[in-house]
């Protein structure tokens, strides 16, 4: 069966990629100058004995290979280690952070994809009209904006109207009903989610537009016209369907950049998500936290690409392996 073959191959590829990423993550952070102990023991009374005790406690006295094997073994048991910084299990830290990040990033991404597809299709169908020029130039502008710049501009512009930092109002103690909590959360989410949506949508528009234009210029679209189909039917049944192929792949790939975008956005808007957590972990040389965070990011990117692959497989009958 063409389906199961493809699935097995793609899954194996995904698993191997995850393993390679874990290994690189592990060694990458140990190449960085400085370590957690020198950071933690930066107090005047730190004796060599205290330093040594800390080293032993964190297992940093062992060789890199020994640490690597220990890490892999624990990882298989679902143990991501203890954060150097706050002494909590990394897994708990990550679950909390992810719980905060996922809704914000998901909303921003979905909005970016929906707007990107709508404006991209409109631009292609109304090519060379004013609407196309406006939409395409806007898309290029937003695509070109650095995330941090756009984030700060939105912050400056809307800081009075919308909450500009954190996930909730720390002084809203009176009314603690679920509804008002949700409304507060939504208000706080507008700016970071909008920043993410705006930085992503431009690229999506351009991808969808060029994919649509390429498809509309293909011979089979001429055949569809020759068959006497209406313009609407041609766009819906032929152009859109075929333009989805490159769109799915490219959007799947671009989703990987959400993570880096999320780090910048979360730092700017003090969003207590995985981006902020990683930023803190880098500053504190918190290896277990960094490794855990990067593991989550890696697996997310690989998983999204895997999903894009499956979608592509569903959409394109020519793919056999």
């Amino acid at each position, binding site marked *: 069966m063409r389906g199961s073959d493809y699935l097995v191959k793609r899954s194996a590829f995904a698993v191997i990629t995850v393993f390679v990423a874990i290994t690189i993550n592990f060694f990458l952070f140990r190449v960085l100058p400085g370590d957690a102990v020198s950071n933690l023991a930066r107090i005047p009374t730190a004796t060599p004995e205290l330093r040594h005790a800390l080293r032993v406690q964190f297992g940093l006295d062992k060789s890199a290979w020994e640490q690597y094997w220990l890490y892999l073994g624990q990882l298989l048991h679902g143990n991501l280690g203890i954060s150097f910084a706050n002494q909590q299990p990394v897994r708990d830290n990550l679950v909390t952070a992810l719980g905060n990040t996922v809704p914000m990033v998901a909303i921003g991404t979905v909005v970016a994809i929906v707007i990107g597809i709508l404006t991209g299709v409109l631009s292609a169908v109304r090519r060379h009209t004013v609407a196309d020029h406006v939409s395409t130039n806007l898309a290029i502008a937003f695509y070109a904006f650095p995330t941090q710049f756009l984030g700060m501009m939105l912050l400056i512009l809307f800081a009075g109207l919308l909450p500009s930092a954190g996930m909730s109002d720390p002084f809203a103690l009176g009314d603690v009903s679920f509804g008002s909590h949700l409304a507060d959360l939504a208000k706080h989410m507008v700016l970071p989610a909008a920043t993410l949506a705006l930085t992503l949508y431009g690229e999506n528009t351009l991808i969808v537009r060029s994919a649509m234009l390429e498809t509309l210029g*293909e*011979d*089979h679209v*001429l*055949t*569809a*016209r*020759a*068959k*006497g*189909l*209406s313009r609407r*039917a041609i766009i819906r*049944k*032929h152009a859109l*369907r*075929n333009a989805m*192929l490159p769109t799915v792949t490219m959007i799947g790939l671009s989703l990987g950049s959400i993570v880096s975008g999320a780090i910048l956005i979360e730092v700017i808007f003090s969003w207590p998500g995985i981006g902020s957590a990683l930023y803190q972990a880098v500053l504190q040389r918190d290896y277990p936290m960094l490794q855990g965070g990067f593991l989550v990011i890696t697996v997310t990117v690989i998983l999204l690409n895997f999903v894009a692959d499956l979608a592509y497989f569903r*959409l*394109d*009958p*020519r793919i056999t392996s």
Partner: protein
Amino acid sequence: MTADLATAPLLEVAGLHVWFELPGGRELHAVQDVALTLEAGQRVGLVGESGSGKTTTALTIMGLLPSSAAAAGRVAVRGEDLMPGLENGFRSHRWTDIAMVFQGAMNAFNPVRTVGWQIAEPMIAHGTATGSAAKARVAELLELVGIPAAAATRYPHEFSGGMRQRAAIAMALACEPKILLADEPTTALDVMVQAQILDLLTRLCGDLGLALLLVTHDLGVVAQTCDDVAVMYAGEIVERGRIDALFHDAEHPYTRALFAATPDLYGDEPVASIPGSPPDLARPVVGCAYRPRCPLAFAPCVDVRPVLAPVSATTATPPGTQPLTEPLTEPSTEPARHLVACHAASSARAT
């Protein structure tokens, strides 16, 4: 067959001009005053080299010119002129009256839809068949062109080149058109498959009473398939007539050169190429477009454009040059079938 004389021809193209807008405001006059008629069951070849306007002519008949093109003239199906309505005028006639088999059937199919779905699509769009009736019709059409009906659920990339071309023909027949335009239907196919496709087209025209306009650069293909030929050069039809008349007694030096450029399987005659290249149609052509390459060019060719005129019967077959070959069938309804646009041909006749 007197009724045919009274009614309008099945397809009539008259005074057809097509211009392409070029960057910088210039215009390319791609098709110039082309006239053609097609009757049921008639097979006409439209021959010419690349850029001679033959494909553009076919696309204009379908109303499929790109937006950068402008067309003028008459394209009429059974007397109804389609040109004034443009997009809307043509759309209702597409596939139900005129269907087209495109060059390179690989790309004529949407790669992500099954062949059966694509054959059924125009039936559903035009309401000629739906649901299981459409499915049955797809099976019938596939069998008609020699493809097993079960192949309807397969995708274009699973077909061989020849099968795809057959499927393209089946698709063209979906709504029982009266006129079939075939644009280089056998290019990129090997000789055996090419012969099969041409046989199929000829058979279908006979069985279904289809009128066929075959656009090709290959004289061999025309000779194998068509009754009549129109030779295009630089956007104009320069000679028109029955295939045997043109084959034996071509009047236009370009037609003669084209035949001379075709390799002869049985003779030892060398293949003669035509020196020079066709004129740039972005500039107005004065006089005869073929003059710079013509060995017979003389004074009037420089500034007077030759028009299509009948070759008189005596000139076409001078007594004595041909043995007595009485036509077995009735002579065709049109009195002058052999037309040529050449000063040299008419002056030769005059002397």
